[in-house]
């Protein structure tokens, strides 16, 4: 079943939509959730939440890229669950590491401008990503959006772990400069 057919099932409120989503994207969502939560059972529960969220979101939404839409919802649910589960302790998963890494970008005492609309900031980030070489962009998105481990990125993209780390470090610096240049830092 194609993405558009699955979306059509959602639009028709046909419960098979979830079954088909599970069939086509079950592991996909679980992997993203697992990246963040670091616990397989939590990830499974998160994915169930994702299905429910998708069910509630379509309609009215009509995703342009269903896979990316799922990834974003899964990420959102997983991060929410992560924060709930780790409200008072440092837990497993890659979130603490990624937050540490992101701190490099915003660590000089300045803040993401409170006056700037979030969408302007993300638009700036999107412009930045659009100018990156594909490899660097994939590495960045896999790490900071999909919360994939450095090792996992390296393995999947056929790079050395250090190459991934160096790419991330350089991209972070470039992003920081870009956000500064655009006046958001």
């Amino acid at each position, binding site marked *: 079943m194609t993405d558009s057919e699955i979306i059509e099932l959602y639009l028709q409120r046909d419960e098979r939509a979830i*079954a088909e989503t599970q069939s086509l994207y079950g592991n996909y969502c679980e*992997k993203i959730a*697992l990246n963040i939560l670091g616990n*397989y059972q939590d990830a499974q529960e998160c994915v169930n939440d994702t299905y429910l969220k998708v069910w509630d979101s379509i309609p009215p939404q009509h995703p342009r890229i269903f896979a*990316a839409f799922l990834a974003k919802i899964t990420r959102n649910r997983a991060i929410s669950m992560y924060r709930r589960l780790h409200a008072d302790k440092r837990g497993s998963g890659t979130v603490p590491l990624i937050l*540490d890494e992101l701190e490099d970008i915003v660590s000089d005492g300045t803040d993401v401008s409170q006056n700037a609309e979030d969408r302007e900031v993300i638009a700036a980030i999107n412009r930045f990503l659009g100018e990156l070489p594909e490899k660097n962009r994939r590495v960045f998105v896999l790490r900071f959006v999909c919360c994939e481990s450095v090792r*996992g990125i390296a393995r999947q993209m056929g790079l050395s772990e*250090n190459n991934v780390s160096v790419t991330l470090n350089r991209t972070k610096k470039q992003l920081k400069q870009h956000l500064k240049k655009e006046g958001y830092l």
Partner: protein
Amino acid sequence: MKKDELFDLLENVDEKYIEEALHDYDEYDSTKPIVVYEGKTRVTPMKIIAPIAACLAVAAAAGLVFSNRDKITRILRSNGSATSVTTSAAAPAASAAEPAEIKQPDDPEFVDKCKKIITDRFSSDENVSLRCAMLDMDFDGEDELLISVNPSRGTHTYGVYVFKKTAGKPSELGSFALNHEGDFGFEDLYKTPGENSYYYYFNERYNSTCDKEGMKIVTVGKFSDLSGEEVYERTGLNITVDPVFNLAELNDNYLDQYYNGEERVTRQEFRRLWKQYPGLPEISTPQTFFGYDAKAEALDILAEKYGISRDELSNTSRSWTVTDLNGQGLPDGVVVFSGFDKLPNIYAFEDGEDGVEFLGELNVKGELLDNIWIRQMTYDDGNGTYPYYITAKIDDENKSSEYSVFRINERENGSLWSEELLNYGRDGGELFFRVGDHNAYGDEFLREFNKYRVGYDHENNMKLDHEIMLALISNYCAHEDINYYSDFDDSATPEFISAAYADTHRDLLQDAALFCRAVIDDYEISLFGEGVFSTGYRGLDPVYGADKLFVALAKNGELLDVLEITPEDEYYTDGFFTGFGGGFTPIIGKYLQVTLVSRDPHTVNLQFFNENNVEITTFAVENDKLVKVKQSNLKISETYPKLDMNDIPALDSYYPNRGDSLAAAELASEKYGEYELRLVSDKLYTYTGEIGEGKILATDLALMLCKNGEICHSERIITDANTINGAVTVNMISLDKLDELISFIELDDGVVIKVSCEDSDDWFFRLKEDGFEPITPRESYDNRVPLSDNYTVNGNTVIDNETQLRFTFDF
């Protein structure tokens, strides 16, 4: 929470970039199982809940409509899968303190069906012992059938298989591959010291114990429910329990128990321990298979290729062996099947990036089929003459090749099966050699093989004489397929010699071998060993020796000069290696490196390491000849370029001394009066991962005191910091602290040189006229002088800047 905000914002990056990133990302492919990596361990979590689709089907049949979380929860709970919507903390995992009840199976017919599934995977000549038990593994209220498999020979399928009864039919949930070499199932396996039992980890929630004779579930509990002390009490292992995935963190004490204690680690145990440490190359034996799925896929390909039913292949008498294409010791995918009743030849497959690929086949009569070269030979082991075959597979670009020697054995029924005896090849220009460790005749075949190669029968003496050594070197250097590197390469780790494991005796690996090679412009400087042997392992590090060492100089494939450079000193004459019957000389391998010093004139350093010493011999190339140069004659300014952070290369591993590296560089310099002090390193790495990013790992440090541009005193700094089993010395240096690496401290009674180390005590030297000397005992000095940014030194008084407390020392 600025970083949190940014983190959240990133959720909204353009979807096309997310799609781009995840495109072809096969671990997100729902047709494949999720794989969770921890270190080098690969774990395939078992799906223990009913798929939500099935739940929804049940819900739909029940007329339920779900539109919110509560309803989904109720639906799933009604289907007995409540764990899927409750938090994991609330999952009804059995307490570790309350072992689950294990029952015997009560449905013989079901058991037989499941057993048949297992036995069909074995060759008919394998005697398999099966034991069964019932246990509710997925906590759905229904017991699953567990079958432990203990084959009489071979190890790849030793494990526990879990079957669920679905509509009366067996449904295999998964397996625990107790053979940790297997790539399928749940593979973490820990042997409990002093007990003949195994401790393994299951689905990140349960742990059990299984003895070799069968299966005995001792505990079922969530790992995170156990404290480290409890795990230790139950298993004897020191395991960091939280987070759950860090099961592999066996601490050094445990390793020491094996490597320094009375108990010799078994090869199997060693391999298991080896795998716990990320970054180490995998090692394995030819028997190891790449996984049942790939094996099944290979058989599918074969069946389709020859129009034979899959069942006919499955049920036939067959055997397989796995070759090691790149010589890393890992059976990286080439598997050879033989002995099919319906198919007479030997068939090779590769489990590559794109799945299983048919490589070609060998006719046992010695005919070449497809792209595999074969040469038939015979060997008499005293009990009869065996035919054996040297086979070769050469890649399309002719950059790597592999030669394997197979012995063809015949069964009583006339069918044939092959056995890999040794393996030799060249990967990217590097030679490697591996003798099948299950083969008692490896040396004999090796001799035959060398005879074949160089046309020289060296009869009673395994060692090659110098003439033959030169012939080998010349043969190598003149090889037209030498893959010249574009720049200096110092990958000196001789992993191509990966045959011997922790044998307690000297194990001759090869008459001659290339250990490392540096290609510098037109020149190729190689280090060869003659009479190469292994003394086993020192800690986790393989140790090799050679009777003689040679440096060869080649240019454009022509051998120009050869010098014997066998060190006079015997290394490892005490301590650990006395157990092997005395010191061997020299120790080479990872304790030897070739580094480029300069290009004009071309100069290289050959460095020999042991735990107490670094021996450096420097060679220059003059008129196409190798000339030995004393190190003290070299000027620092000519030998060590300033460290350029842009040159920091990629590192392929967490593990130091592996992966790419930066050649020699000057890390820091500091002037004091007429003196200039320089800290140089002969080997640099960037360091990532668990220890931290943004670090430089500098090994082989030297402190050099210069006066008027000339070295007036130099000294190697061999630290005990971050020592890897006492054999390799390294220092961790933070990138942002390079300017603080070395400093002069004026005291009342003289000047002290301080070298800062991030992860260890700093080093101190007392400045003398045109020289310096270590302040010893260093530990004592360090304890007395807590120098850091928080302290100010005034004469021999140290002031704590925060408390203003003063410490006065009498140096």
